[in-house]
């Protein structure tokens, strides 16, 4: 089996690097070095992914976790570094397949960082849960490639493929807790519904292709901005929204989220609730905003309202922490959709900031949860957290910090994230949505508070063990805390960057005023 793997790896390797050289003769059909620079992080990631695959068979199961994890970590860090390098080469590559701009660089960085932290927090988890490391890390790395491509692709087909890469890898990762029926079930549900939604998305792409004769975002936006929009484009947008709405868990396409999050391994939940979601939001921005999809305003308005309300409502009575956080992630997706409904030049930066902040706190929260869950993820009920504040104060404090960030208490990233969405919404006079958002976040405070109350105000239950936090997980949590705090105390730099790259997005497209005008027309 490993042999087969090795061979496939080699073929893939050869495909991705030798072929271009073979084609080198045909002039004007040679990818320039700049082109490779513009997909440098993807290249690095897949390189290390293969490295993991190769090393895996050489080590014995017992102590492969550490070494493989280290390799994967190094890979992500290298990719992270290469992101900066990539950012030096703005522009399109591979014949208008990908565009490197502030926007994509931002999401590259975000997604890879998430992957890095998740890998870090998985070190111990894999040992405790007895999960094979090789495929695990490999899949994370390759999945990250997909996410990165999602954020930079400007060609619907490439977007589709990237989407599939990230999805399939997460389908598999969700089912990694092999001994647990829940895990495989979540994997199945995720897979079937995922491909179901992807089919919708694909159909949308087809219709968009039919309506505009192209699948390139720029070309599409040209058509869609030019006066008369074909009716087909509306249907296409609808279908694509269904597909992407599923990926970002917007009501009523959210149904998969709680089940999948509950069944999947905790660190993976941390990954898939942030990484693919961030990428999906990026795609949504490209498809809806950059391509200036028609008739999207009320669509977003309603689904935003529904999403946050339903998410919070359901979360009120959850007793399983993972499930509770799943619903909360639905609610947060709703908050982000509010920003989508705002005027693009305001909303986009808010979206970017929110995804970043949410990633920081959510990955952190799940890192804590996954450490505390223990073998077989036995302890994920809220009651198991009773008295945590007394038994391991630091862990409890960090979790409290993340929960505060969820609630949106100042000097946490969550506050500014919410703040920016609010200000974007208010600046574009979405008073109704603002009120719904405000009420929602007030309600949401209740169920986050439940956990805090459990940890600090209830007596410990004896049988729940508390193992000391291993170094790697501690480091991961620390990184998340630092990030959340940084975004909460000095959001300036990130925000400037987001706003700036919003200009990229807006300038790639026609003037933002045009699209906002089209929005205004829809009200």
């Amino acid at each position, binding site marked *: 089996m490993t042999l087969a793997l090795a061979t496939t790896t080699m073929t893939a390797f050869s495909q991705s690097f030798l072929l271009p050289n073979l084609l080198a003769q045909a002039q004007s059909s040679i990818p320039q070095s700049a082109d490779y620079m513009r997909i440098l992080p993807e290249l690095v990631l897949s390189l290390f992914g293969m490295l993991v695959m190769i090393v895996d068979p050489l080590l014995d199961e017992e102590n492969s976790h550490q070494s493989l994890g280290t390799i994967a970590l190094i890979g992500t860090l290298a990719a992270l570094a290469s992101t900066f390098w990539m950012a030096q080469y703005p522009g399109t590559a591979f014949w208008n397949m990908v565009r490197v701009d502030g926007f994509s660089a931002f999401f590259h960085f975000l997604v890879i960082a998430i992957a890095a932290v998740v890998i870090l927090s998985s070190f111990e988890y894999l040992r405790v849960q007895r999960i094979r490391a090789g495929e695990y890390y490999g899949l994370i790395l390759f999945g990250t490639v997909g996410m990165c491509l999602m954020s930079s692709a400007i060609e619907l087909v490439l977007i589709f493929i990237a989407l599939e890469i990230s999805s399939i890898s997460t389908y598999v990762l969700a089912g990694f807790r092999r001994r647990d029926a829940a895990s495989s079930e979540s994997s*199945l*549900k995720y897979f*079937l*519904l995922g491909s*179901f*939604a992807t089919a*919708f998305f694909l159909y949308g792409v087809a219709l968009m292709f039919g309506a505009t004769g192209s699948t390139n975002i720029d070309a599409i936006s040209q058509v869609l901005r030019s006066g008369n*929009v074909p*009716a*087909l*484009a*509306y*249907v296409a*947008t*609808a*279908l694509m*929204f*269904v597909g992407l*709405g*599923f990926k970002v868990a917007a*009501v*009523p*396409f959210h*149904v*998969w989220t*709680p*089940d999948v999050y509950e069944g999947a391994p905790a660190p993976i939940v941390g990954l898939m609730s942030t990484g693919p979601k961030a990428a999906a939001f990026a795609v949504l921005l490209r498809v809806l905003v950059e391509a200036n999809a*028609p*008739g999207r305003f*009320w*669509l977003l308005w309603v689904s935003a309202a529904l999403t946050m309300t*339903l998410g919070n*409502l*359901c*979360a*009120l*009575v*959850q007793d399983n922490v993972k499930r509770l956080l799943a619903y909360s992630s639905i609610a947060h997706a709703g908050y982000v959709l509010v920003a989508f409904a705002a005027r693009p030049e305001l909303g986009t930066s808010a979206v970017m900031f929110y995804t970043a902040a949410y990633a920081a706190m959510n990955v952190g929260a799940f890192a804590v949860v996954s450490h505390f869950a223990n073998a077989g993820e036995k302890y994920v009920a809220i009651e198991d957290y009773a008295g945590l504040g007394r038994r391991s104060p630091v862990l409890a404090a960090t979790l409290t910090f993340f929960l505060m960030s969820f609630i949106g208490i100042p000097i946490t990233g969550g506050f500014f994230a919410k703040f920016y969405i609010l200000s974007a919404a208010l600046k574009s006079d979405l008073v109704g949505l603002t009120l719904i958002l405000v009420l929602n976040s007030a*309600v949401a405070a209740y169920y986050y508070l439940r956990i805090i109350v459990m940890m600090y105000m209830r007596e410990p239950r004896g049988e729940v063990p508390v193992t000391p936090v291993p170094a790697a997980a501690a480091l991961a949590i620390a990184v998340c805390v630092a990030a959340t705090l940084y975004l909460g105390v000095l959001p300036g730099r990130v925000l400037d960057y987001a706003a700036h790259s919003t200009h990229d997005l807006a300038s790639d497209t026609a003037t933002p005023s045009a699209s906002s005008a089209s929005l205004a027309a*829809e009200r």
Partner: protein
Amino acid sequence: MTPNPYLWLVPILPLAGAAINGFFGRRSSKNAITAIALGFCGLAFFLAVVIAVRFSPASAPYYFNLAHWIRSGSFQVDFSFYLDQLSLVMLLVVTGVGFLIHIYSVGYMWDDDGYYRFMAYLNLFMFFMLTLVLAKNYLVMFIGWEGVGLASYLLIGFWFIKDSAAAAGKKAFIVNRIGDFGFLIALFLMIKHFGTLDFTHVFAAVQTLPTETAGAGLLTAIGLLLMVGAAGKSAQIPLYVWLPDAMEGPTPVSALIHAATMVTAGVYMVARSSAIFDRAPMAMMVVAIVGTLTALFAATIGIAQTDIKKVLAYSTVSQLGYMFMACGVGAFSAGIFHLMTHAFFKGLLFLAAGSVIHGIGGEQDMRKMGGLRVYMPVTFLTMSIATFTIAGFPPLAAFFSKDEILWKAYSSPNGSWVYWLIGVITAFITSFYMFRLWFLTFFGDYRGAIAHDSHDPSRAGAPATHGHGHSHGDPHESPWVMLGPLVILAILSVVGGWIGIGGRFEHFLAPVFQSGAAAELAHETAGEAAGKGTETLLMLISVTAAVLGLLLAWTLYLRRPQLPARIAASLGTLYEAVSHKYYIDELYAVLFVKPLIDGSTTILWHGVDQGVIDAAVNDSADAARHVSDNVRHMQSGNLRSYAGWVAAGGAVVIAYMVWMGVR
């Protein structure tokens, strides 16, 4: 207006005494305590005398600004003191009588564990009372006003072990608060319309206003509200209820606070505000009516009381009624005159009664007394003087003052013969029940059981009343430290009235009551011819009334002691009602207290607070949880259902978009 830097010392001295005793009394010897208390109080008295001696009508009034107190925006109030003829009289009365009663208390309270507390409280009371009297503006007056209320609260509840005493104290404070409420509103009106509370400025402002004929007006409102305050402090209808209960306090307290000084504060305040009342005839009339009714009403109750102190309490209420009657008809000077004499003889009465109670071991029920004149001659003598005085026999003090009041009630422009008639009837009743008391207490033979049996166990907590080692056994005379004040007061209640002869007192006070007095004088010169004749006639009538009262009491309680019971029987319900003070307390309980408590409990607390607001909060929380519980069943766990949701949602989205497209 001439400054007098000593004014502020008068109140401060007793305060110092109170502070010293209050803080260190617990650990210092009784002699030290006595020295401190009497020392500072005496100093105050001495200072008052000095001030009085150096008082010259020419340079009056005196004033002194001690310090700023409150300032907000343009409105400002200072700690400032004021001395004119009126406050001089009050000053002397308060310090003098107060000092005497201090001395008396030394004897009366010596054996009480709380001796130091008692002395401290008394001094504290003196401080507040003097502040009240010497205030230059209504707010400083209000300090004293509330302060004496506090002092009386503390002193009534002095034996707090007794629930009745504690309750009485609370009652006194709260009823007073109701009066103060009116007082406050009056102050707010002044602030709003005059922008100041300083007497001189307020009155100056008032002078510019026209006399209000048709009742409803600013001054009338102020006057009525002030009267509410006065009624609270001076126990007038309908707020008199606290005073009888206040007798739970030690007797010196009853004498000092609830007879001589504090309760008269209302009269003083009304007199002080004469400038306002003069221009609010409506308010004046109300004052007069209230006073008259109270006088009669309280007197009738006094008939049927058996507790010696209760009798005196109701007589106090009724005498205060006289004073208000006087003020109400514009005869402020007469009111103050009676106030002064009343301070003497009523203080004397109480002290004597105290000495009686003290002498027979804490018994207060007159039916258990009798024939005490042989046991305690001095007390008997002084008591008799006091009784005759209050009954209004010439030439004793009350004769002049009461007669003055009745005459003014009849003659003054705002007066009428009705006031006079009721006044005379009251005088008759007064003399009747006072002599009833006199006969029951001192004549006949001693009806009390052996003293220590007579101890009512409920008094166990009140050591002073039976603290004497030798108080057991036969009734006995009190020590001289107690009798001394009695004698002095007796002398005062004999001669005290003479300064009023020929309207000297009135002319002395005239500058204070400018307008009012002026009016009266004018009126007198007019009705001079008729005046003199009628005055003597009325005088005779009232004296006869007093004599009749004496005779009646003599017949009923000395000659034919069995008669009262029969009369009581024949009167039946009426007697019942009278002896139960017309059930007023019960009425208030039913009308106000109970509804308040029950209403607050059932309607407000359990009803609104828990039933509505909290319920709403919790219900909405439950509702949210319930909704959430239903909504999450959308999450059936079945894959096809999920697909169904997705498909349906997709359909909705498509439908909307198609509509957008074709629109």
